[in-house]
Structures are given as structure tokens and as C-alpha cells.
């Protein structure tokens, strides 16, 4: 019902103003000791996997890389059945990290692990 949308556009636009609760990428530096992996990981000393948190806006902006399905789901949630949840705020792009670790037999292993740092978020 585009009439309703047009009527409520200010509300939508206000929400687009980037409320704090909007889906966004947030830092979370963590030590491998906190993960219980410090016995076997020597480097890096710092690791910030980051994470995505926040509500997906009702009108999904293009820069959320949201698939069409998410746009539809968002409308379903608002216009058809609120039991269908809004799309979720999840990582979109990742980057690898390299890890240096001790192996059980005393060997030392350098390894690159894919998808270890979230670089951007999306709504899905």
C-alpha cells in the first residue's frame, strides 16, 4: 500500500538517520587466552574479529548489500505477519588472519585462516 508508505515516509527517513541501534560493524578485541587457545597460539598478540549488531532498518538501504529476499522479508514483517522476523544483521565480507602456533610434537606452524575478521555487515 504505497499510500501508507508515502504517508509514513518521514518516520522511515528519521529511522534512516542511522539510529545507534542500526545494524553496523562493531569492534571486539579479544585475546587468544580469553578463547582458551593461548597454549598453542604464539602470534598475533592482538585479534579483533569485530561483529555485526543492530536492527535492520525497515527500508533497507542499498549499501547494506541486502538481497531482495531481505527486502521482501522486511515488508512481510511489517505489513503481513510480525511473527516473521525482520532480517538479521550479519557479517557480509570477511578477511583472513595469519596465526603462528605450536604443534603437539613441538613443531611450529604458520597458517592463514580465512574469514577470521568481519569487514562489513548486511541484513539477511
Amino acid at each position, binding site marked *: 500500500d504505497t499510500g501508507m508508505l508515502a504517508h509514513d515516509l518521514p518516520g522511515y527517513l528519521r529511522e534512516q538517520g542511522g539510529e545507534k541501534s542500526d545494524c553496523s560493524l562493531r569492534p571486539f578485541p579479544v585475546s587468544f587466552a580469553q578463547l582458551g587457545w593461548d597454549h598453542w597460539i604464539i602470534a598475533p598478540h*592482538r*585479534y579483533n574479529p569485530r561483529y555485526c549488531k543492530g536492527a535492520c532498518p525497515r527500508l533497507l538501504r542499498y549499501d547494506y548489500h541486502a538481497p531482495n529476499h531481505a527486502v521482501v522479508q522486511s515488508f512481510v514483517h511489517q505489513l503481513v505477519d510480525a511473527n516473521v522476523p525482520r532480517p538479521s544483521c550479519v557479517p557480509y565480507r570477511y578477511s*583472513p*588472519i*595469519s596465526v603462528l602456533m605450536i604443534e603437539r610434537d613441538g*613443531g611450529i606452524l604458520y597458517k592463514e585462516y580465512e574469514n577470521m575478521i568481519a569487514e562489513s555487515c548486511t541484513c539477511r
Partner: protein
Amino acid sequence: NQSLPPPSSLPAVPPLPLLQALQARAASSRGWRAGPASGQPLRYMLNLYRRAADREGRPRRGRSLGTNTVRLVRARSHGGQPWAGRWYVQPLTYRLEGQPAAEHLLRAAVVYLPSLPLAHGRLLCALELVATSETPGALLSPAARTRRSWAEVDVTPYLLPGRGMGSLVLRHVCVRAGRAVGHDAPVAPSHPFLLLYLNDTQAGLAPPAAEPHRHRR
């Protein structure tokens, strides 16, 4: 002749086994200074890591290693007393069983120090491939000198392709060059180590089994 004086010239000599035991203890009490810190493999890998990744662990552009996995395999030494006069001959075995199937070997190199400064003179070293039923013995010449006077010898041809690579047996041969003064404590050079450059075809974190057994929090 640096070897020990023959037992006959010693004063009333206790029975030979006791003499050997005493000599062995004397040698150890003279403090066999291990070669440079035994953490050499760790220092080597930390330098390799710093070249490949930044402080956050992000791989640097252009990935200088050319692969996503490098495993350092330490040597297991066997055989008896490696020193004989100026000569040091140490057989070494690198066990390669149990490599994860997802890790494909791209290149293998043995890293060692071809020349080691001593209090008087130097220790000059080389590596020999020990003959097996599949491969004849060979003197291995360093393919490249890496940083900090390490030498890298390419041993890829000697490692069986694919799974089930058995083990690599080498001999670490050194000779003390220069004037031997008195009873210099012989410096045992640290063992060369094997680097396997592997392509890990799985991106996932090592399965928990790979993690040393730990009580989960």
C-alpha cells in the same frame, strides 16, 4: 691430534666403562654449551611470521610466502656421541607421517647454519642426505642464503609426493676450523629444521582434534 689421549698414557686407568662414564660426565660438567639458543626454530618462524603478517595478524599484500601454511618439523637425533676430534657427525630424522590430507606439499627445505663462530675459529657445517632404498646419498648444497646467515637447502625432490610421506634422514656434518685452544667446550650446533610449504585446501580453523588436549572452559 685433538682426540682424547689413549687410555694407555693415562695414570692407573680404571676399567674402561668407568673411564667412559667419567669422561662423559666430565664432558657434561664442562657444560656442553648448546649451539645458539635452542629457540632458534621459534625465532626463525617468528621472523617468517612478521614478514608475512602485520601486528593484527592480517596477511601482508603480495603474501611473501606464496602459500597459506608453513610447517616447521624439528629433527629427532639418534646415534651416539657426535663428536670425534674436530668432527661432528649427527644423524637426524624428520618424521613426516600424519600430515593432514588437506595440506598439499608445494616445497620443502632444510634450514641450517653453514658457519658458526666459536671462541677460537669457526664451525663449518654441511648436510648430507643419507642413502635409502629409494634414493642414493648426496651432499646437499644450499639453494639460497636467507636472512641472518641461515642457509636453505631444497629437499622437495626427496620427499615422496602426496600422502604417507615417510621420513627424511640426513646427516649434519661439521668440522671445527681454526686453532683449538686447550679444552674448548665443544659447541654442539643446533639441529637443522625442516620447513614444509603446504597449500591447505580447507579454510576452516584446525579441527579441535588438532588442538592439544585441553579441558574446555
